[in-house]
């Protein structure tokens, strides 16, 4: 597929060129760590998940064909892996009882430089509210929303990543957007939490 800038690298890797794989993971490391972090709160765990994704890509590279755009295929592997991780974590939590409160902002992150403390706090609240509402969505809606709104994939790319139709993606994104919009309304209880 000539329009896929990654196809040549994947083909080279399939031919045994290890440097081609390194180029690929360097190209997508940031995107994958960020994407995995949308599913788990812990940054170190997100990084580990992103590494898992590249290991899966490495292990199943022989099955990739240029008919599948690499980026779409990568997000498919990542989505499946992250959703599996959520299922595993939820299963574990049911056995162990709740261990972590997703609702509070990451104070370590807030302590870093950049925007003003007030902006950081608001961003942290917003992120926490988003995490809560995303966690409440069905898996397919959650994945479609994150891929669309936070990763910037097109409806067609999301359809490829989720192995569904564009019409289904349109429906998933609409339903998720309506739910998220309600939760992120400034008057919503989620965003009022923690404000004094």
């Amino acid at each position, binding site marked *: 597929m000539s329009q896929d800038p990654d196809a040549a690298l994947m083909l080279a890797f*399939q031919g045994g*060129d290890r440097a081609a794989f390194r180029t690929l993971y360097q190209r997508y*490391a940031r995107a994958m760590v960020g994407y995995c972090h*949308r599913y788990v709160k812990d940054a170190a765990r997100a990084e580990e998940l992103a590494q898992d994704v590249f290991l899966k890509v490495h292990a199943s590279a*022989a099955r990739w064909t240029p008919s599948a755009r690499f980026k779409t295929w990568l997000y498919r592997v990542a989505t499946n892996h992250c959703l599996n991780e959520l299922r595993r974590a939820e299963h574990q939590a049911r056995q162990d009882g709740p261990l972590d409160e997703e609702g509070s902002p990451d104070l370590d992150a807030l302590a870093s430089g950049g925007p003003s403390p007030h902006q950081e706090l608001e961003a*942290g609240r917003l992120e926490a509210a988003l995490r809560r509402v995303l966690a409440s969505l069905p898996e397919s809606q959650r994945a479609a929303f994150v891929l669309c709104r936070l990763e910037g994939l097109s409806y067609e790319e999301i359809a490829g990543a989720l192995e569904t139709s564009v019409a289904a993606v349109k429906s998933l994104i*609409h339903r998720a957007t309506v739910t998220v919009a309600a939760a992120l309304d400034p008057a919503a209880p989620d965003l009022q939490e923690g404000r004094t």
Partner: protein
Amino acid sequence: VSHLGEDLTALLDGALPPARRAEAEAHLAGCDACRAERDRLAAALARLGALPPPAEPSPWFATRLEARLAELEATLPGGAPAAGRTGLLGRLSAWRWRLALPVAALGAAAGLALFTVRHQRAGRADELAVAAQLELLEDLETVRAAGDLADADEVAVVAALDELLPREGRP
């Protein structure tokens, strides 16, 4: 009154075909409810711009990944990753004819197992599913490593097949 529904979100995302987009915009011009909904959704989406930036890979991301890749490659016969995979598949391909009989037997087992777990879905679809599973036989390691089996039933079937599959070093 029929409102825009899913088309409203797609309109905001620029994902409607031109003709449908024109229809949706015409509807919006005359529908207070849809305009209000559009404004509410647009405001919420705009708020996402205030989210903290996505997490960055740590400085040791590449080092750790390389170490894990090295571990993975060490488990693959043949050394280099892609070559290892190709080699594995190549060996499986070369073994295909020598394994024809056992594979056929395993195929029958796969068919039986799939028939058992999917007994409500008999017919042509099952035959195709069995054929697909036979393809998996040629690449079980990859399938298991990829972790993309569809459901617990398939995992159970492949696990059972894995036990039956002839393998180097296995009696």
